[in-house]
């Protein structure tokens, strides 16, 4: 019940600060444009005056794509047919859970790092706004919070990176080696497949658990004015373990909402053939609404977690 109460309260807080969600969305869009613009020019230049452009307007031209792929460099290599619909989402989830993103081109990794850095800055503003009674978004307040808590959040980010890359990374590699050695001695491909799925789920659970702990560390830093990030992290871990059912339950409920939203997006996306300008426009609106909703859910998660923290304190 306490989960639902805090979820509803969090949702209301998010609704009241919809401008902040909009700001975060705009920043996401602008940041993505930093790569989308060169990608657009790369595609445009490769298609050039060719009639293949007409084919690409109607659908995906596999023959053209192979040619594009064979000459592409850096982040251009991520342009594959899998960006269509479900592929885009599945690819990202697999990349995250199995740490496959480390194989991405360096330019893309740097870009991702900079975005995380930006987001670390913004997270201070988000939590600060939600910690106000009543939460009300103003640019001044938002950036005041963002600037004030950035050094602490940056520290948490560094610890978070250490945990994810070194500890979870080692775990993922270890899981991978178990799957590989099982593959060498198995009677069929089913055993390594099942092991792979189990390890992916275990990795996901551990990953999400760590994420919850880091979330509450940020919340504690803001609401308790903590200045020692390690103490924040330990206190957060203690809080999450003590209230495991509530903290995990709330997180997993919102995780389920994200999955549901993704399924809805994939279903709608697959129904609309992008063959005309207006249908392309509609798909663009749907896609951006999906991203907007995801950002909204992230804010909803922060507000609900903050409320739950205050509720259980």
């Amino acid at each position, binding site marked *: 019940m306490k989960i639902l109460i805090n979820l509803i309260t969090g949702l209301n807080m998010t609704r009241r600060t919809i401008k902040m969600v909009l700001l975060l969305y705009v920043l996401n869009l602008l940041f993505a444009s930093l790569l989308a613009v060169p990608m*657009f020019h790369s595609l445009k230049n490769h*298609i050039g005056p060719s009639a293949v452009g007409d084919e690409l*307007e109607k659908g995906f031209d*596999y023959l053209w794509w*192979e040619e594009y792929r064979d000459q592409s460099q850096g982040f251009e290599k991520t342009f594959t047919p899998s960006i269509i619909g479900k592929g885009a989402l599945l690819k990202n989830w697999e990349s995250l859970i199995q740490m496959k993103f480390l194989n991405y081109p360096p330019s893309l990794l740097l870009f991702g790092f900079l975005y995380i850095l930006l987001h670390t800055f913004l997270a201070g503003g988000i939590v600060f706004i939600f910690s106000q009674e009543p939460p009300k978004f103003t640019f001044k307040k938002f950036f005041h919070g963002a600037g004030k808590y950035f050094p602490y959040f940056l520290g948490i980010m560094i610890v978070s990176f250490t945990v994810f890359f070194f500890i979870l990374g080692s775990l993922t590699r270890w899981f991978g080696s178990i799957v590989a050695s099982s593959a060498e001695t198995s009677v069929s491909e089913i055993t390594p497949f099942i092991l792979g*799925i189990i390890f992916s789920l275990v990795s996901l659970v551990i990953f999400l658990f760590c994420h919850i702990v880091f979330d509450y560390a940020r919340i504690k830093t803001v609401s308790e004015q903590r200045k020692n990030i390690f103490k924040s992290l330990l206190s957060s871990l203690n809080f999450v373990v003590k209230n495991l059912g509530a903290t995990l339950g709330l997180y997993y409920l919102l995780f389920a909402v994200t999955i549901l939203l993704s399924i809805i997006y994939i279903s709608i996306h697959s129904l609309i053939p992008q063959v005309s300008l207006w249908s*392309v426009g509609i798909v663009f609106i749907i*896609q951006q609404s999906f*991203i907007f909703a*995801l950002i909204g859910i992230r804010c909803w998660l922060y507000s609900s977690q903050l409320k739950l923290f205050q509720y259980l304190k």
Partner: protein
Amino acid sequence: MRKTLFLGTAVLFFLIPIVNSAEIPFCPQIANYTMEVNLDTETDIIEGHEILSWKNNTETPTDELWFHLYWNAFQNNQSTFLMEASHRGYGLSDFDKDDWGYCRIKSMEIIKNENFTGEDLVSTLRYRQPDDRNEMDQTVFSVKLPYSIQPGETITLSLKFLSKVPRPISRTGRYKNYYFIAQWFPKIGVFQDGTWNCHQYHSSSEYFADYGTYDIKITLPSSFKVGATGEYKNKTDNEDGTSTHHFYQHSVHDFAWTASLDFLRFIENYEFTPGKSVKITLLLQPYHKHIKQRYMKAVKNAVKYASLWFGDYPYSAITCVDPAYNSRSGGMEYPTFFTGGTYFIVRKGIPRPEGVTIHEFGHNYFYGLIGTNEFENAWMDEGMNSFLDTIIYHQAYGEPYYSEDYFGIPFVFKKVTKPIESEGISSHRQTWNMDSMQRFSWRFMRGESYGANSYSKGQLMMLDLQRMMGEEVFSEMIKEYSIRHWWKHPKPEDFFSVVSEFAGEDMSWFFDQVVYGSDKLDYSIEYIQNQRIKPPLGFFENQYKTAQKSEKNSPLYRSEVLVRRLGGVKVPVDVLIEFRGGKKIIEKWDGQYRWKKFIYKTPVKINRAVVDPGFIHVLDTHRTNNSFLIKPNKSAPYKWVMNWMLWLQHAMELFTKLGS
């Protein structure tokens, strides 16, 4: 006359019940093997007794015999095969004493000869290294004969050999209770053009052998299920808990077999064309039982369509083996017997197991019936057979979908299909300047060049030829080439000559560039220019004309299209010129010089130009530059960058979990 007729009839009368029509050879039986072999599954040792009857089918006498001992490639890491494989990163550091494989000759005697019966040849045995002089390589040996075998003469030998089954390295070996036994016995080379053609075993080469009859009895524990080349004659249970399986096949050039405790065996008779049937045996892994129908249908489609394209499949049996996981025996071909390969999750539209099944069955033609030298002319079997599997797959199933695996689960992208022209072009595009197609298999710059030149470019060349010659003529040609060379060893020139015969012209200009050359085929439209012709201005035969406003209703344009040859391969091409209003002109260009301009003086502008509008030349490495539009499509880049951006935005949003 009457008496002779009577005698002849009497002989036939007695022959009919004895000689089954299915046992009448299709061709001269040059290398005939009768073997009795025993597999000890405790030690993985095969003890064999081989009676080899070899006929000198050439015009040249010979006093030596050359043999392959392929399994000696797996006896140590200094063999040519493993040295070449190690350069590609293949390691054997975890190999134990029992993991290596080899083949040893225990005795070799001449039999059925008036003067030399019992003559031991082992003392004359000498390992040979014709390809690289690597003295550690023992995959080829020769023996000296006490006499010369004259043209048309036959020699019969009795060999006793011992083969140790290796842990799977490549194509053969034992994995758990699954055995795949290929290239496992002392096998005579091909005596051709007055010399022995008997290459060492290389990591990227296949085989070459003469046709003959294989009459093989395999003894092993009764609990094993067995499959092999040819017809399964019978099984005899022995008192010691073993069974002897008898297989027989004439007019083939190899014999391989498999045994496993786990096989599920399915047998169906399939009438692939009215009056002609084949017995299909499918040996399936239990964990792929649910894929049985897809495998079986793929074999049937392969037999049916291959028969239409390349002549009716002549043998009475075909055995398809679903290889055990990790056995490294998947996707290999042997006469009337081949391995497929699949994954336990199958999806409609992903060619698994169909692609590999059709390909490996197809080798019954390009390698089996048409016995090309795979060591020397790999494109003649792999290239042509890749063409076979592609056209048959597309004919039977349509265009396959693009797919990707996430978390080990294959996902189908139904909005992305792979057209036939995309098969192999990417690997050709990336390797076109590394090698020419015509190279000995082990002499390619890199493994991917061997693959691209033997498989991809060979296939693309066939598709190109099909479109150049027209489907009807090409179909007649390829069937004729096929049937004309069944049970023979055609060389590239034999193929070229059949193509030229059907094309009605000497096609060496094409093959010289594509088979022996290492250049690319790439034509492009550089630009279209539409320039309004200005009104006359200046002196015209003493008449001076001043600038006047042109008549608005009848402007004239000087329209120009520049077509360029960017690659070294020269082929004649069509150029489509389309004018505003829909008028189209097809121009012919011999494609010889580096460029050609087409200039028109017309009242309407040119809208579009396409070089090779019929997509004849699938070898063209860059198809995108083949067309030019005056008004290019502007929305396509927006559409696709938008989709890509969604992926990026989602990634950004998701990956923030790593740090904030």
